[in-house]
């Protein structure tokens, strides 16, 4: 048997040198005259171990990582093609604690095989959900998704099945499925990983959504910062079309569904669903007022399902294993699993899919292993640039939509950025306002003007000018933005700002040390 070597082609692994490792392995194979097959898989998401190279042995896969090009010679000397011991030896990948502790439903296949092999996809349960769906009535599919308790994983947490039901019930000669892959929130990379590591699961989810709602055309709107994901998705759509997964007869059924990949152009606000629709239509990515809901008048005025990548990619397993199977995971009204992305200043950064309900402390300390710098954790921002900063005192908060809302936070797209004790929370609050000013679409005043005034007011605070008055002003401004903005950009920017002020008041005091230092 020709040995198989798996080297991730995921952009996170590439950023850590996977291409150089692949080159070194190819050179070493040539030099030693060994014939081997190199498979470029996705990433399993343990980025602290990337580039993680795996070999297929008679006893199953054996992983090594993080591999540097300089390790390659000694890997061969240690007989790594047969799973031999080496300082980078990690053993069976699914036994690595970070991966073994996870519950992988949506990411069940991600990182295991060549993402563009439809055969590999099918060998691990792929297309079973779609096969079930084509034999069902649309309303039954919608019921199953509703009963699973799946809620929008983009951040808003709206029940996916209810959204689909609205589109199903709305008459239209043409309907659309739009996948929001404009994953602009810092600390999030779950969408990117799925698109690069298991693209067919997203295609399958979209096809199911199409059959369930009567939509025949899908668009995936991917941010331009993700060129690797765009390339993989384009190829995957082409392969799916050739294999009859997409087209006029999806899996040989009378259902038609096809899709296109579209690329954004560097506007964060296009992650907001209505600006995304405008952008797809070729307009400025300005937010639309709701109502009408996109489900009733969406893309080109037609009934449109707009869902996040992870929501759609979670549908195939629900259609394969049933609503009850999925619903059994989780807590309260947060059902199923959530891919938590542990990022920033953290020792064990990566993607951790698990049932809802872990506490923030378990995620940061036990799974994340604390900070990368080894200093104490000061704050963690949950939910991207529009999410609140949580202090250690709130580490008992369970990962659940409602529990986070109760503590004036949000789980958003489930990204977590860890900061050590060198973080200056006034600076973070200022950045939140600055980012809102840079990315505001300009349609509503609280966001467009409020963010700029926010930066100025926080600058006055930093300079020690009338601190009490300016603090009151920022608070009032945040209140206006929260309740007066059209969308989450202006409406949620107050979360990072106010949480910084509330939980870290010492950073906003005109400390003599701060003034003296400048």
């Amino acid at each position: 048997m020709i040995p198989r070597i798996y080297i991730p082609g995921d952009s996170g692994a590439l950023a850590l040198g996977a291409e150089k490792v692949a080159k070194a392995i190819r050179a070493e194979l040539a030099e030693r005259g060994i014939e081997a097959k190199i498979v470029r898989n996705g990433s399993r998401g343990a980025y602290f171990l990337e580039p993680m190279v795996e070999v297929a042995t008679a006893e199953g896969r054996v992983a090594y990582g993080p591999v540097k090009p300089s390790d390659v010679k000694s890997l061969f000397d240690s007989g790594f093609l047969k799973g031999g011991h080496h300082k980078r030896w990690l053993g069976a990948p699914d036994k690595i604690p970070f991966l073994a502790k996870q519950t992988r439903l949506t990411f069940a296949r991600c990182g295991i095989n060549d993402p563009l092999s439809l055969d590999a996809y099918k060998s691990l349960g792929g297309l079973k959900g779609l096969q079930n769906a084509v034999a069902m009535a649309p309303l039954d599919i919608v019921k199953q998704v509703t009963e699973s308790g799946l809620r929008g994983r983009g951040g808003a947490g709206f029940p996916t099945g209810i959204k689909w039901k609205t589109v199903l019930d709305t008459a239209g000669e043409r309907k659309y499925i739009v996948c929001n892959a404009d994953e602009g929130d810092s600390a999030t990379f779950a969408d990117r990983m799925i698109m690069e590591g298991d693209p067919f699961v997203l295609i399958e989810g979209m096809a199911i959504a199409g059959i369930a709602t009567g939509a025949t055309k899908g668009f995936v709107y991917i941010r331009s910062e993700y060129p690797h994901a765009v390339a993989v998705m384009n190829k995957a759509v082409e392969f799916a079309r050739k294999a009859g997964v997409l087209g006029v007869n999806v899996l040989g059924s009378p259902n038609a569904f096809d899709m296109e990949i579209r690329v954004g152009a560097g506007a964060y606000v296009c992650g907001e669903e209505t600006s995304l629709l405008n952008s797809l239509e070729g307009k400025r990515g300005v937010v639309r007022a709701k109502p009408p809901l996109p489900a009733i008048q969406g893309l080109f005025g037609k009934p449109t399902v707009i869902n996040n990548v992870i929501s759609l990619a979670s549908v195939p397993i629900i259609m394969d294993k049933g609503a009850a199977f999925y619903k059994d995971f989780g807590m309260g009204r947060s059902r199923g699993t959530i891919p938590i992305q542990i990022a920033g200043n953290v020792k064990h950064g990566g993607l951790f899919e698990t049932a809802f309900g872990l506490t923030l402390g378990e995620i940061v300390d036990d799974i994340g292993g604390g900070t990368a710098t080894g200093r104490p954790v000061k704050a963690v921002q949950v939910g991207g640039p529009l999410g609140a900063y949580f202090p250690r005192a709130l580490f008992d908060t369970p990962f659940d939509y409602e529990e986070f809302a109760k503590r004036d936070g949000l789980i958003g797209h489930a990204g977590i950025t860890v900061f050590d004790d060198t973080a200056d929370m006034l600076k973070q609050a200022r950045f939140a306002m600055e980012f809102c000013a840079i990315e505001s679409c300009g349609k509503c005043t609280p966001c467009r003007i409020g963010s700029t005034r926010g930066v100025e007011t926080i600058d006055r605070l930093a300079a020690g000018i009338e601190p009490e008055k300016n603090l009151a002003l920022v608070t009032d401004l945040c209140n206006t933005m929260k309740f007066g903005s059209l969308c989450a950009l202006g409406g949620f920017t107050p979360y990072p700002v106010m949480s910084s002020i509330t939980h870290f008041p010492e950073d906003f005091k005109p400390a003599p040390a701060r003034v003296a230092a400048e």
Partner: protein
Amino acid sequence: MTMQPASTEIQSRTAAIIQELKDLEGPLLPILHGIQEEFGHVPQDAVPVIADGLNLSRAEVHGVVTFYHDFRARPAGRHVLKLCQAEACQSMGSDAIAAKVKQLLGIDFHETTRDGSVTLEPVYCLGLCACSPSAMLDGEVIGRLDDEKIEEIVAEVRS
């Protein structure tokens, strides 16, 4: 200096791109990406051609071009270096990284070095948040930036 194609040439090449893409649903963004790929920026002379081809006003096309950060009004340097400045990278010292790169290149964000070798831009998230601080050089991703990697990058863009 980069040679600017003549106005008539811009118009004919733009028209060809429009011809190829205009039957897409919502063709304007794909067309603008095509034009930027062709010319390295979206030339002013392309705007009336697009407006004409898609039955839009010039103001509408101008409005779309200027809304998106990606579309350039003039060509970039031979290399484009994007440094992530979002929160996850901030937590790993992206501010200091940016300061050092700016100093080594002698330019600020949104500027191009005088020899036209490199344009420096901030980017808000490359989705490499567990490999912070990160950057993108001409579409290639780079994670866990440190002084050594910065010096390598600067040497590469300068050569």
